[in-house]
């Protein structure tokens, strides 16, 4: 068997990814904020929950959301971009947030065409830092909005089955 590791092929597949597929105008993305990657000794630092929605219209993305239950007051919220969903990456923009354990988050930014494509690919994520977790307490990757059928309710579509 061949054993190819083809970087160009990987990039081509990313560019034509089918699992994340949304129109560039008027598109809605959402994420549930969960703990930044932690091990069992750090669990208490990454407590909390939240949701963020991003609506893209006219090349501009507007983000709104809420968070709750942080282990310490939030100090910063930012938008980042990695190479794929679930891959941490580079800073993109600061967001506004309530400097408390619970509150709101918001922001807006103009997207370059490559960034709009990256958003469609699920590369962007929101991260909230706190005083106890300055490297991140909550994060979540913005993915195309998808109706939630509820716990253990079957549906036809699996966006990741491709």
């Amino acid at each position, binding site marked *: *068997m*061949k*054993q*190819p*590791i*083809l*970087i160009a*092929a*990987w990039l081509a*597949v990313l560019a034509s990814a089918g*699992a994340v597929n949304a129109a560039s105008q008027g598109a809605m993305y959402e994420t*549930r904020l*969960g703990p*930044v*990657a*932690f*091990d*069992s*000794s*750090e*669990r208490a630092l*990454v407590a909390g929950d939240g949701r963020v929605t991003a609506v893209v219209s006219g090349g501009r993305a507007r983000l709104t959301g809420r968070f709750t239950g942080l282990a310490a007051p939030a100090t910063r919220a930012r938008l980042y971009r*990695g*190479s*794929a*969903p*679930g*891959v*941490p*990456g*580079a*800073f*993109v*923009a600061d967001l506004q947030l309530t400097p408390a354990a619970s509150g709101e988050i918001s922001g807006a*930014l*103009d*997207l*370059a065409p490559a*960034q709009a494509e990256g958003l469609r690919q*699920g590369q962007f*994520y929101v991260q909230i830092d706190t005083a106890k977790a300055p*490297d*991140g*307490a909550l994060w979540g*990757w913005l*993915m195309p909005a*998808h109706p*939630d059928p509820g*716990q*253990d*309710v*079957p*549906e*036809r*579509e*699996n*966006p*990741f*089955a*491709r």
Partner: protein
Amino acid sequence: MKERTVKRPMPVGALAIAGAAAGALTLGVWAASADQQAPISQEQVSAGRAAYMANCAACHRPTLAGNGDALPLTGPSFMAGWGNRPVNDLFNKIHTTMPFGAGGSLDPKTYLDITAFILYANGGHPGGGALTADANVKIATFANGQTPPDVANATAQPAASPSATAARSRAAAPEGLTLEGRIDPYRPVTDAMLRHPSNSDWLMFRRNYQGWSYSPLAQINRANVGKLQLAWSWAMNQGGTQEATPLVHDGVLFLYNTGNTIQALNAKTGELLWENRIGPTPARTFGAGADSYRSMALYGNKLFFASHEAKLYALDARTGKIVWQTDVGDPAEHFGEETGGVIVIHGKVILGLTGCGVRPAKEHCYISAYDSETGKRDWKFYTVALSGQPGGDTWGGLPDDQRAGTETWIAGTYDPDLNTTYWGTAQAKPWRRDMRGSGAGSTLYANSTLALDPDTGRLKWYFSHAPGETLDLDEVFERILIDEGPRKVLVTIGKPGILWKLDRVDGKFLGARETVLNNVSKVDPKTGEVTLRPDIVNQQSDQWLASCPGPEGGHDWQAMSYHPPSGLLVVPLSQSCVLMLGNGSQKFYFMPGTDGNMGRLSAFDEKTLKPVWTFQQRSPFLTAVLTTGGELAFVGDFDRRFRAVDVRTGKTLWRTRLGTTVQGHPIAFAVDGKEYIAVTTGLGGGSPQQKPMNLLPEAHRPPTGQELNVFTLPQTAAVPVAKSTGSKS
């Protein structure tokens, strides 16, 4: 908005590794001075050695070499993760998280002693004063990862934890043949029976040679499953890892308990018929990967199983007496473990081996076959291609003693017409190839499907699913055999969650389908070739790599099921991610796009691999799927639920809540015209338990509760059977 390229944001606690190590780390070379004394005392080292053996060695080994999820605590891997961190970080990590599942349960002095011993085991010389909890000195200033001979050669068996519940129960438990059976009459199990098992029986791992995990019984069906009720339950040994498959033959249920206790029970009433407590009992009540065992087999008058210590036993199925026993590994060299189970083909008992991850490797993993009458070894097939052998050039030039891993920890399947047995293999070790030193090589036969002649062990063909794999995403699980008319196919799914289809005659790639978010690898749908994410290709040992799915999978040992009447594959899936460091350290997080749901049950059309239905839930599934002629699929989860769904729609039709995590391999059987469903509850295991334990704090489970639960309908009726589809069963 223009992006600024800044240092990648690091998760909590990781800064010290990435920042301090940049440009400073040379793999395997730590320049601590031989004269530099460590901040540990000899008294602490001595006490720590004893405490380590009592509390840690069962998972991390007496030599601190590690085993799977229990990472190495000495050597280059340990130093790669901890060399640039202060001592108090190590103490805090151990104190808060260990023993596994019971962090903080020991007294602070014991944790200090264990920490001191680990530092000694990495070349730290006592004499710099007693270790304190706030010691802020960097480990690499006095330790160099060189394991002293007394640690490297340690062979002492780990003692029981004095605080463990198992210790108290172990003191009271008898050993040996505690109840001799007299099952009479007993019909010997024949080759013909194994090829065409009675609908009432469950004679092997996933019921048939093809590994379908399907029972044709249809008395329990979509219309009446809502009335399912408990018929009887049976408390099992506590401790170790519960992943058992009960077997049933002519109304007798055979059950493996942790600690190598084998029992025969009346399948209708739950009455104990015989019991042999072979031992040893598990060293701890709760631990990753300890003492798991997945499948036994019946043939002739015998019941076959292999102990965790890789000793193969033949018991008289009528009495429970040991007929013969033989070593599969090499106990003198402490080599080899067995967890996957056995399959019997043409009177040969065939099984794999695990626990082959230690380097330098004195031996390598193999699949081997034994005469069912005598226990004499018939053949061996090594799953590692050595220098000069076919495939030996795929290990990046590593010397043979550095080629480790490629375990087989799930029993194989068998095609009687092709006379071929199919096995999956695990990854090469260490997981991360930057630590392994094998480069981008496919490290044959790691992460492969192997097709072997069961009479000789000759390799007919292989397919490498994940060349250069590096994140504990092995492809070792069930190989299901299906006939699509004249075409003979094999389907399998590994931790990456890629559902593979191969031609089982020649290994040709036929198709693939991703089933969960996968940001690690992409498979070409035309060729089956896999490409890795660029940063994974260019990995550095001090770099945290993101992996979705993580080592929980995707898919893990919880087998999928093929349902012939509908042509569906019903697959239990998990959804979680990790950041992984070069030494195997992991940080966990939820998979993007899942809304915090770790469990997914999905059905795919076997012919096209297209998705048919799917549902998510918070808790991952920790049993295999059982499908039945009653158009049902049964599955259990981490949060104690066991349910039946409509196999064609995924709609839940019945569910119940059991004593602890529902974990194991459910089966269906019939006695006197009445159908039963049996499933075990239990604890223990690696990533499938560890990830939800960390990510789902709301899921509370008792630390005990390993049990067999048997369900049936309230009324007795003749046992209908699903109409034949023409497929072999």
